[in-house]
């Protein structure tokens, strides 16, 4: 039948077209799903040390001195006096909190995870703007893929046979968990 041929062509071409985005959403989906156990976008490291008292360092020398003592050379973003004797220095990829009297220092370093950062960036729709439409179109593509997919095979392998059993199982799975948790 003609519509079956059209269905097959549509399913095949949409499958190719959606391949890249499906991989992105699948990988990022797993990463974001386990957000309680790790940060899926950044690799975080905390370093606690003592860089010595900065009590006698002149005000204008303070920030360069802190950066030099912790061996930080990256671009300075901002500075915040978090308490009378405490200062927080923000540089690209690092937040340095220093007690000026004791020299106790806590560095919270972060490095974007290669690939995952970008995948999550798209998956969580950080770009917004036109990407929202691309993601919506992709969702429509997935919908069409699902619908055309169930009509690819006929007979015992199709909806009235094995395919029907698997499709029903696929619908029952979310229904079961809704019954379990709701």
């Amino acid at each position: 039948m003609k519509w079956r041929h059209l269905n097959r062509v549509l399913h095949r071409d949409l499958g190719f077209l959606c391949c890249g985005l499906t991989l992105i959403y699948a990988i990022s989906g797993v990463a974001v799903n386990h957000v309680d156990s790790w940060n899926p976008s950044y690799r975080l490291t905390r370093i606690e040390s003592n860089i010595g008292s900065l009590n006698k360092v002149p005000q204008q020398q303070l920030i360069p001195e802190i950066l030099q003592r912790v061996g930080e050379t990256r671009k300075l973003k901002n500075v915040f006096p978090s308490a009378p004797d405490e200062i927080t220095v923000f540089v690209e990829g690092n937040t340095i909190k220093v007690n000026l009297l004791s020299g106790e220092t806590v560095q919270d370093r972060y490095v974007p995870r290669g690939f995952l950062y970008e995948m999550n960036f798209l998956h969580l729709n950080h770009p917004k703007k036109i990407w929202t439409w691309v993601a919506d179109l992709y969702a429509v593509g997935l919908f069409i893929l699902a619908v055309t997919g169930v009509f690819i095979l006929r007979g015992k392998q199709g909806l009235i046979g094995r395919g029907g059993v698997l499709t029903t199982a696929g619908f029952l799975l979310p229904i079961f968990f809704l019954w379990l948790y709701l």
Partner: protein
Amino acid sequence: MRTILITFSLLICFVITSHAGVEGVYGKGITLSEVTPISKINDHPEKYVGQRVLVEGMILEVCTSRGCWIYLSSDRPYEKMRVKVTDGEIVFPVAASGHTARVEGVVQEMRRSKQDVIDWKKHLAEEKGTTFDPSTVTGPEITYRLRGLGAIIN
């Protein structure tokens, strides 16, 4: 095949060499134009409960697990304000710390029993990977925060 390999290699190179910035609009963005100083809210927070306000400050800290809260610096030294957003609706990136931001939202009062305070502070400590001593909590607490609806990070 060669075209596919070249395209894929170029894509990988692009991804490796480019990192998207944190600047931009988050959530529903900003609709108010007048900024309410955080110090003013901190002085009499009960007056602002339920009010929609626009605040401005430096992002001091970001939730490292879900990006669901930030601390914003006040216009007065050593002060800050906690901004909580709905999980997943807005996700503040860790790299936003040190950037300035404008956040619009509704001021909320949080009344917690002693046990709730202990549970909450324990949860915060776990998120930060630090330790928490429950004996430091002496009783119930009332805190104020901004329920963030939209933000612009510069």
